[in-house]
């Protein structure tokens, strides 16, 4: 009897086993027109929630804003608003929504949709990390902080279904750039009110951008299909995109090499060990990128409370050696903090490599030849992806330079990522590794983080003059004067006070075969609008590529309103 039961269990097991095989594995799906490896799994596709570049590249396909970024220059150009007026004091913007702007489900997009989406983004209940992107708007910060409860006091109002009026606290030179930023994109009110936090699971999901969401399976893929009701759908060339959430550089490269993916566009997905070979291939593209790698001093710890000591530590770093020996992807050594190429700004040169001067300064600070210098720590974290060993290698190199040039011994401590951020926030460090990627093409995205009370400062440093310069620059309407104010602030940051030491500027890196994929342009924000990307096939590949390029330029010149920036 027992044996029969055992046989029965065994048979049942075999049947289940086969059933799993058949139901679990045999799910063939039609292939997409273009497959892109997009980096880590997005935390969300809600534009008010997301914070990372890999998420922003996806949400810009689903949710449109008043403006969007030009794929080559990343300057803001018209999107759902076809024109706008700016008041003479540059504090009031009046946007006119296109008459053919529709949700993918067919309803018209109205100015009220913008009011709802923006108020939602600053509503404390939404808990948006990036609510700060809307703080230039009158009373937005107060509403987010709960100081005012009445959303009608926030400076965004629908004058009629097609007209949106926005009042700012002060002139904001980069406000049109912000209008293209995901946090300010519009989302479907009815769906969100009905389904709450799980609104992105609804199908069909009303989309306002060039694509609609078909599938989102965590750690598997995100599939998007062209939205035929997007106002510019005629110029959206790819029907179906698949985005693969992949965090491993080796897997990304293997998929690309075997033809399972057409594009890899996350710079963390470059296997660092293969960089020397990869960077010379025609399908590997590098470009200037709005990111800076630097380290912070905790200025509340002795002896880094003395700016002379901070300067000493900066003067002995051979940054050229770091980019040539360690990073190797074409990064530029950084003497200043704001990367080159930022709109309307020429950064001021910072300190160079000057060990002699450093040793003199160290002696004057009371540590001749490094004698008596306390044993301090440089903290860095174990990164994932292509940067896995980079932080450690840089830390070792810095330690060596400080030891050789100054006779100072700095301990290295590698800690887990989350612990590292907590430690940095609590100022529980002496020196710590850091980096910053700009959100928009303006010097403010770098410089305002070191204002005294900014949550990203995390050095203990605060300077009234610096804060004053930043505030003055941000309300200055004359771009030349504004640049001067920023330059004075940056000079304070990286020449005089040095709560941080910039090490190098990042380089953007992605790979695709330009004979097979068109419409991806290197730009400073590493943003690649989906509507411009497509696969080229057939014998007329070259001709088609040229024609498409001319086409696109013409289209963008038509879209560009007379006044794109104030």
């Amino acid at each position, binding site marked *: 009897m*027992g044996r029969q039961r055992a046989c029965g269990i065994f048979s049942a097991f075999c049947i289940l086993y086969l059933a799993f095989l058949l139901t679990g594995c045999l799910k063939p799906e039609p292939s997409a027109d273009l497959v892109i490896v997009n980096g880590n799994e997005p935390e969300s596709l809600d534009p008010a929630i997301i914070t990372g570049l890999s998420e922003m590249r996806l949400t810009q396909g689903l949710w449109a804003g008043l403006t969007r970024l030009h794929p080559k220059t990343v300057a803001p150009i018209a999107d759902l608003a076809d024109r706008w007026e700016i008041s003479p004091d540059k504090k009031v913007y009046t946007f006119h929504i296109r008459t053919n702007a529709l949700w993918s489900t067919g309803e018209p997009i109205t100015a009220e949709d913008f009011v709802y989406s923006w108020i939602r983004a600053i509503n404390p209940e939404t*808990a948006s990390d990036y609510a700060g992107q809307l703080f230039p708007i009158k009373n937005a910060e107060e509403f987010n902080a709960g100081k005012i409860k009445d959303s009608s006091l926030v400076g965004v109002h629908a004058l009629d279904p097609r007209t949106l009026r926005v009042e700012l606290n002060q002139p904001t030179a980069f406000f049109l750039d912000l209008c293209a930023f995901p946090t300010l994109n519009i989302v479907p009110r009815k769906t969100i009110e009905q389904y709450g936090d799980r609104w992105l699971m609804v199908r069909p999901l009303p989309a306002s951008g060039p694509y609609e969401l078909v599938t989102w399976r965590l750690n598997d893929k995100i599939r998007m299909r062209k939205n035929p009701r997007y106002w510019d759908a005629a110029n959206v060339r790819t029907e179906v995109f698949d985005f693969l959430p992949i965090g491993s550089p080796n*897997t990304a490269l293997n998929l690309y090499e075997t033809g399972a993916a057409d594009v890899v566009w996350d710079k963390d997905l470059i296997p660092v060990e293969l960089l020397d070979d990869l960077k010379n291939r025609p399908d590997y593209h590098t470009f200037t990128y709005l990111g800076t790698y630097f380290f912070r001093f905790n200025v509340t710890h002795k002896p880094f409370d003395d700016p002379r000591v901070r300067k000493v530590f900066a003067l002995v770093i051979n940054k050229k050696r770091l980019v040539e020996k360690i990073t190797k992807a074409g990064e530029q050594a950084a003497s200043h903090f704001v990367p080159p190429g930022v709109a309307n700004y020429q950064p001021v040169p910072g300190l160079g490599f000057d060990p002699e001067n450093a040793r003199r300064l160290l002696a004057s600070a009371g540590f001749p030849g490094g004698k008596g210098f306390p044993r301090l720590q440089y903290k860095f974290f174990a990164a994932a992806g292509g940067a896995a060993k980079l932080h450690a290698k840089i830390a070792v190199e810095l330690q060596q330079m400080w030891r050789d040039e100054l006779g100072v011994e700095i301990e290295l401590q590698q800690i887990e990522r989350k612990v590292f951020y907590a430690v940095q926030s609590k100022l529980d460090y002496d020196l710590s590794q850091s980096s910053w990627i700009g959100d928009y093409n303006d010097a403010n995205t770098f410089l305002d983080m070191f204002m005294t009370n900014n949550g990203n400062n995390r050095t203990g440093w605060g300077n009234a003059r610096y804060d004053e310069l930043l505030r003055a620059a941000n309300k200055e309407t004359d771009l030349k004067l504004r640049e001067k104010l920023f330059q004075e602030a940056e000079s304070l940051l990286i020449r005089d006070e040095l709560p941080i030491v910039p090490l190098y500027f990042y380089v953007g890196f992605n790979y695709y075969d330009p004979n097979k994929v068109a419409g991806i342009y290197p730009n400073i924000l590493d943003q690649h609008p989906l509507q411009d990307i497509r696969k080229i096939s057939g014998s007329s590949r070259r001709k088609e590529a040229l024609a498409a390029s001319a086409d696109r330029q013409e289209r963008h010149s038509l879209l560009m309103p007379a006044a794109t920036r104030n």
Partner: protein
Amino acid sequence: MYFLKRLVVLAPLLLVISFLAFVLVRLSPGGPFDRERKPATPEIERNLKAKYHLDEPVWKQYGRFLSDLLHGDFGMSLKYRNHTVNDIIAQGLPVSVVLGMLAFGFAMGVGLPVGFITAAKRGRWEDYTGSVLAVLMVCIPGFVVAPLLIMFFAIKWRLLPVALWGSPWQVILPTIALGLYFSGKIARLLREGMLNTMQAEFITTARAKGLSENSVLIKHVFRLAVLPVVSYAGPLLADLLTGSFVIENIFQLPGIGVFIVNGSLNRDYTMVVGLVVLYAALLVVLNLAVDLVYTLLDPRVKYE
């Protein structure tokens, strides 16, 4: 009755496990919203904590968790903020189960014959070859086997896909990479069990009675020698069903294993607790199943 009692014990056991997981994950330094970019103002950070009730005392948070759990709800993920932990389990578990079952089948399908042959042909070339193979399987970890399989089968010979999920071809390499270690382990367990059993007196008696060698090996030796393999199969199956982080990561499979590890690294409190409870439940149920199979295979085993 015994099995019913075991099932009743399950609930308080899971309660204790969930409490420990809940408290331990909160004791670890760094929180779910500690990241490189801090919000512009402290109010934003406060809003974020308030939304997920992280500003409340831990006992209150645990009470909330238990109340949700009674309704079968593990809560919202703190990392993937539009997904519930239930969504993630529903998406990831079937993938891990399919992969786990395939790897389990592979491990048994390879391990049992190798173990049987090496024991039956003790001291002969089949024994030496099989034993060396089994040692190799146990010694080479999955994260070494997987890249080797990819290099040869996917990149050099272009026979199989390099990664991803969705077609039967895509499960072959991860199944081998995941199952190979356990094949070796099962082969060694069975060989050892059979060699020990073969020295028992009743086997000598069976042979003396004139039974054929095959009959002795299959009917008498194997049936007893397989018991250690059955004991091992319960926890093994639980391990395999809840996924393998390394293999899922290398082959980019959307299973649950990736979430168990990443949930801890991301301090995704709800995800960690939810998956720990799921894993514990699976482990207990599968151990119970092992005990059940024991009673079927060995009539001497009785549970009171």
